[in-house]
């Protein structure tokens, strides 16, 4: 029998395509509640949008949501909370579209989406709410074993005080109001290492240290007897040998480099051509550069900090360079770049083309012994490492700085401080939401001692609420407050100088150009009359004046609010913002900064 003409692969494909389309429509309608509206079973839903797709986060949030949805008052009120998890890649597009169309989820993580930066236009201010206690922290629900001060703060204190950072992460400096409630903690950047590999590397070092003829990689790494730190990176001491015999993690820069050298030897001996010491990527490269900057720069900073404001801005960095307060030939600066290059020499080839996920995967597949990333990857890494056919133990350590007696220790011996770190996953309440009270109630629940404890235990993320215990394996990710906070702004602010700096830096740490070539290119770009420092200064002047005008807009808005009687607290905020407005001084700080560095030269104009 002849087959009907319409029965062909094209028809089959079309049916699949159409069917998939219908299924997608069905899912979207079901998730957004549109289907319920059609079927008359409309349900009131508090939608919770975020981009945390790391293993554990969604599952933990779902556990908390289930607990909340089962509460009698929630059931009685006839609504429920639903999470919507969107990939980081599409989050901005999704949220921007819905913010502008007035259909944004009731709660969404602040950040990523460009429109979300227009905080006051799209999000509800929370100052009045955060001053009241969290109703879910009660005498019964908060454990008795907590220190009394913490317990009383949780039960009687304002909600904002129950957050580990005092809700700094939810505060908007410009608008002098709270606009977000953090529900977790990003945690700190840490070195993850494969305990088995590190043990084998230590054994290799112990073996070759006493060999009659030491291999070149040990000879060049260790300072010879009677030598100085110019001859090697770390001394061969009894402490080093004791450390090699023990199980302690890598604790100094010299030891990190020595173990990395040894790991190449492990790869050679075990015939593992894909094994590298550190799972580097474009992501890792920036983490190293940012983390080591305060450690190496801090000895140069006090003179450059012209306004004593405790931070080094881009203008101070430029001015300091142009007037010789620091240079690329200063020992700490050269040491900083040398360290970056030395560490990067233990990354896989072509690491600049690899991203964060590829780096993580290499570590999980045991093709790298170490990985630098944040606490947000921790639970996924721990889980996947234990589920491998050949499971391995993961250790965690802080990024090491030069130890006593090691190269650069003289000026680079303090770790970078993590004290400025604030809490994460800041959830903001959409201004047009018709479920505002319900959304706030859920945030109260999620950040209560009980809710956040459940979330921290289930997710393996660090808690946001005081008194909540992190899981044992997450303790090493707690922020380390000891250390240095400021660094030169070598990444500058933009324009041609930043482009040249970044491009040349990547070539340098990738081993493609020498330090002299790197410095020459960057200094030429900085000194360029049209596109160099002078232009950046002038562009910054325009930005500073714009910031002042934006601050005036905030002042005008507060004035409208209190003059019209919309917001009784607006007058107080007006005078708080006034301090910022006066201090900005119509952008003249920029002109003064120029004068301080270049008293005899006219302020640049373009």
């Amino acid at each position, binding site marked *: 029998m002849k087959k009907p003409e319409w029965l062909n692969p094209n028809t089959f494909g079309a049916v699949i395509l159409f069917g998939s389309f219908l299924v997608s429509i069905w899912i979207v309608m079901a998730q957004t509640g549109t289907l319920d509206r059609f079927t008359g079973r409309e349900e009131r839903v508090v939608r919770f949008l975020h981009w945390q797709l790391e293993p554990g986060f969604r599952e933990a949030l779902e556990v908390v949501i289930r607990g909340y949805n089962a509460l009698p008052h929630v059931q009685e009120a006839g609504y429920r909370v639903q999470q919507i998890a969107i990939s980081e890649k599409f989050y901005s597009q999704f949220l921007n579209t819905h913010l502008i169309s007035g259909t944004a989820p009731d709660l969404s993580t602040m950040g990523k989406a460009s429109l979300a930066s227009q905080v006051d236009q799209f999000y509800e201010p929370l100052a009045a709410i955060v001053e009241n206690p969290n109703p879910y922290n009660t005498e019964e629900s908060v454990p008795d074993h907590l220190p009394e001060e913490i317990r009383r703060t949780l039960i009687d204190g304002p909600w904002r005080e129950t957050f*580990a950072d005092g809700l700094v992460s939810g505060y908007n400096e410009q608008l002098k109001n709270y606009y977000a409630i953090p529900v977790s903690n990003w945690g700190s950047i840490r070195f993850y290492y494969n305990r088995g590999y590190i043990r084998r590397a230590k054994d290799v070092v112990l073996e070759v240290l006493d060999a009659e003829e030491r291999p070149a990689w040990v000879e060049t790494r260790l300072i010879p007897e009677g030598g100085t730190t110019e001859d090697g990176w770390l001394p061969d001491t009894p402490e080093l040998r004791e450390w090699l015999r023990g199980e302690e993690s890598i604790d100094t820069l010299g030891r990190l480099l020595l173990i990395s050298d040894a790991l190449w030897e492990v790869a050679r001996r075990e015939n593992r051509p894909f094994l590298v010491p550190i799972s580097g990527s474009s992501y890792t490269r920036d983490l190293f550069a940012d983390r080591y900057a305060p450690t190496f720069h801090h000895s140069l900073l006090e003179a450059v900090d012209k306004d004593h404001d405790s931070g080094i801005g881009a203008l101070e960095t430029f001015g300091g360079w142009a007037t010789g307060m620091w240079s690329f030939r200063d020992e700490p600066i050269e040491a900083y770049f040398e360290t970056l290059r030395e560490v990067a020499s233990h990354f896989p080839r072509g690491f600049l083309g690899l991203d964060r996920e590829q780096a993580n995967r290499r570590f999980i597949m045991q093709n790298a012994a170490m990985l630098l990333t944040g606490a947000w990857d921790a639970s996924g890494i721990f889980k996947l490492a234990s589920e491998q056919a050949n499971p391995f133990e993961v250790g965690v350590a802080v990024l090491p700085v030069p130890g006593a007696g090691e190269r650069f220790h003289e000026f680079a011996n303090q770790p970078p401080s993590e004290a400025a770190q604030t809490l994460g996953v800041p959830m903001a309440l959409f201004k047009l939401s018709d479920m505002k009270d319900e959304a706030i109630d859920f945030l109260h629940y999620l950040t209560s001692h009980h809710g956040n404890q459940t979330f921290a235990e289930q997710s393996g993320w660090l808690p946001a609420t005081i008194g909540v215990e992190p899981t044992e394996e997450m303790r090493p990710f707690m922020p380390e407050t000891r250390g240095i906070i400021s660094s030169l702004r070598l990444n500058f602010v933009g324009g041609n100088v930043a482009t040249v700096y970044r491009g040349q830096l990547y070539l340098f740490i990738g081993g493609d150009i020498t330090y002299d070539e790197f410095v020459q290119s960057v200094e030429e770009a900085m000194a360029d009359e049209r596109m160099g420092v002078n232009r950046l200064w002038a562009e910054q002047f325009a930005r500073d004046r714009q910031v*002042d005008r934006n601050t005036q807009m905030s002042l005008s808005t507060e*004035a*409208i609010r209190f003059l019209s009687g919309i917001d009784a607290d607006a007058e107080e905020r007006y*005078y708080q913002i006034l301090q910022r407005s*006066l*201090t900005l001084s*119509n952008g003249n700080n920029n002109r003064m900064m120029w004068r301080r560095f270049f008293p005899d030269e006219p302020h640049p104009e373009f």
Partner: protein
Amino acid sequence: MPPGHPTPLIPIFLLAVAAWLLTGCGGRAPALDEERALVFLSDAHTEASVFNYNRAYDLYGQARARAERGGDTWIESTFGLATAGWHRLPPNRASILEARGLFEELAELLPENSSYLPRVLLNLGRIIELRNFPGDTVDPELARTYYERVRDKWEGTIHADEAAGRIAANALHYVDDPERVRAGLEELESYLERRPDSPIANVLWYFLGDKYWFFLDDAEKSFAALERSVELGLVERARAWHTFWRMARMARENLNDPVLAASYYARIVQEAPRSPRVHEALLAYNELRERYPDELPELESLPFTLLRND
């Protein structure tokens, strides 16, 4: 009509509809209607309060057109229209001139006892001294005259305090003339000495402390002004460590008073233990304590970690 020729009824009908619609586009101003004006005004305030100035501009315009000139609703909507015109996007010469014109109209019309007048004058000063769009020129001298008028007419009020602050900030336009900058800052300092109870004295002392250092390198005056601000209570209490750090450095490096410096390092450790500078402050304190063991006690409160649950 020849057979087959289309009937002219449809075009005629469309023309009639168009003519009817166009009657609504006439240049006539809407009739006065206080009730509707108030509705528009309320909506406009709501939009302005969420920074939606383009929408607020239209609504304030509608309210103003329906309100009786000189009445409360008209004043409020004109003030709103000027503010929205100033901040609507994109700013350009025409929109800024229009906003300025509206503020000037109010400045001429409003009686001296109007609660809006000092704010109108302050806004006029601001719109004149800010760079509102690329190519805009600023006129600090003219802006100053508006601030002076507020300071002198509303003496003893918070408006005069704000104006006094603006006059001092206005002097910073003359970066290249340190004497003029000093005169401007000292004028504010004298004002504050005469009016110590100003509700924004802490804000103004902080401003003086910031500028005496950065514009004049006058550590003594800067430190004294910051001290006054700290005594009165810093506005940004969460960033108090920032001011303490600055004061410690000034005391140590410029005032040659290490013990005074140590007291501010200690305040960072004890009052801002979650601040980013806590470790460095503790190191600096301990270094000074080694040199001055009799004057500096051991700090009892060591910094605890950012997370109080650790």
